[in-house]
């Protein structure tokens, strides 16, 4: 019986300690990246290339998704609001939900699956083909040369993409609300302006997206660096990046929202 109990506890404890060790490793990895970030600043060329890969190439999917999300919000919101004769508040509904939540969150989810997975796959493959080891042989620190620029590129791109998502979504809401459903253009914009506060809503949304950017970038580079150097290992790591990022984004969003919007 004590032997069985012992094995049960081991069975319970092993995954827990594994994850704790991984979390600790991720934290030390973050510190190491920050220590080697100076090179990124002195060689902006590296950073520009990563912003190109993470940011510029995500613009299309982010803008198109934002447009559609805004249009759907306008259609659904109009359907409910007109029952109460409040259809002129459609602008408020679309803008607040996009700026506060959907822009940062959906933008981050798309960014994680579009750019995060690519970062993980690239780093994982570089590790598998021993390019990282080759760099170390040439006295080039892969953390400074490869990892840190990708990390910072992701962090810089994310808030800009979230702002684009919100802006495109509001434009989509305008297209549906004003052009298709025939709401008054003046009241659409003026009610929106009256209800959306720059500091409380827009700036808080940007702060959210910065946090999401940090989380996605760290998860992506860490999973890539930590991937077992096999084809299967890289594919698992890529999947894990997307899944972990999605979970972390949603959990982090709850925590940040609880701090920011307490219904004062």
């Amino acid at each position: 019986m004590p032997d069985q109990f012992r094995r049960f506890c081991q069975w319970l404890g092993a995954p827990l300690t594994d994850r704790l060790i991984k979390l600790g490793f991720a934290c030390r990895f973050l510190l190491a990246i920050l220590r080697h970030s100076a090179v990124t600043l002195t060689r902006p060329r590296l950073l520009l290339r990563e912003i190109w890969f993470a940011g510029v190439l995500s613009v299309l999917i982010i803008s198109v998704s934002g447009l559609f999300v805004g249009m759907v919000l306008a259609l659904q919101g109009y359907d409910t609001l007109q029952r109460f004769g409040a259809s002129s508040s459609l602008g408020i509904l679309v803008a607040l939900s996009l700026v506060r939540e959907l822009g940062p969150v959906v933008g981050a989810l798309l960014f994680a699956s579009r750019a995060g997975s690519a970062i993980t796959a690239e780093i994982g493959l570089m590790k598998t083909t021993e390019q990282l080891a080759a760099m170390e042989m040439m006295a080039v620190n892969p953390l400074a040369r490869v990892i840190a620029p990708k990390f910072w590129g992701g962090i810089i791109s994310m808030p800009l993409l979230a702002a684009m998502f919100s802006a495109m979504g509001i434009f989509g809401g305008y297209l549906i609300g004003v052009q298709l459903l025939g709401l008054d253009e003046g009241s659409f914009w003026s009610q929106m302006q009256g209800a959306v506060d720059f500091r409380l809503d827009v700036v808080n949304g940007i702060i959210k997206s910065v946090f999401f950017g940090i989380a996605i970038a760290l998860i992506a580079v860490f999973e890539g660096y930590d991937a077992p150097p096999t084809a299967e290992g890289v594919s698992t790591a890529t999947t894990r990046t997307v899944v972990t990022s999605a979970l972390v984004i949603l959990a982090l969003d709850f925590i940040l929202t609880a701090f920011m919007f307490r219904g004062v």
Partner: protein
Amino acid sequence: MKRGTIDFWVGLFAIAGFAALMFLALKVSTLSSLPAAQTYTLTANFENIGGLKVRAPVKSAGVVVGRVDAIELDTERYVARVTLAMDQRYRFSRDSSAEILTSGLLGEQYIGVTTGADDVQLKSGDTFKITSSALVLEQLISRFLFSKAAGDDTATPEK
């Protein structure tokens, strides 16, 4: 991909991102809370503030002239002390009155300021002398029902 092309697109990306931010800042939202340097504070005591909230607008003749800065209970007289951050550009006479109004039937509550005739103006830190409380719907209905019932007793005994 050539270096120049990447630079160009990253630059364009940055411009588009900041353009989106500017759009959100200028077209979608407003800076409701004015910088502290451009405001002066007034206080007003109300018997009942109803559903008035911090950051609610202060309007005079329908124009927003300030925001509610803080609401607290005066524990000496048991009235609500509302602190208002008023726009520096607008000054009101010393005998102005403040009342709590509702925009629309179910809309948000705001403070309406009606200016008086006195030449002396309210300074920062001054208090409104004349205030009227928020209209509480339940009290209004119960008063109406009460007077209706009383009226029924005397005027129309039975049809």
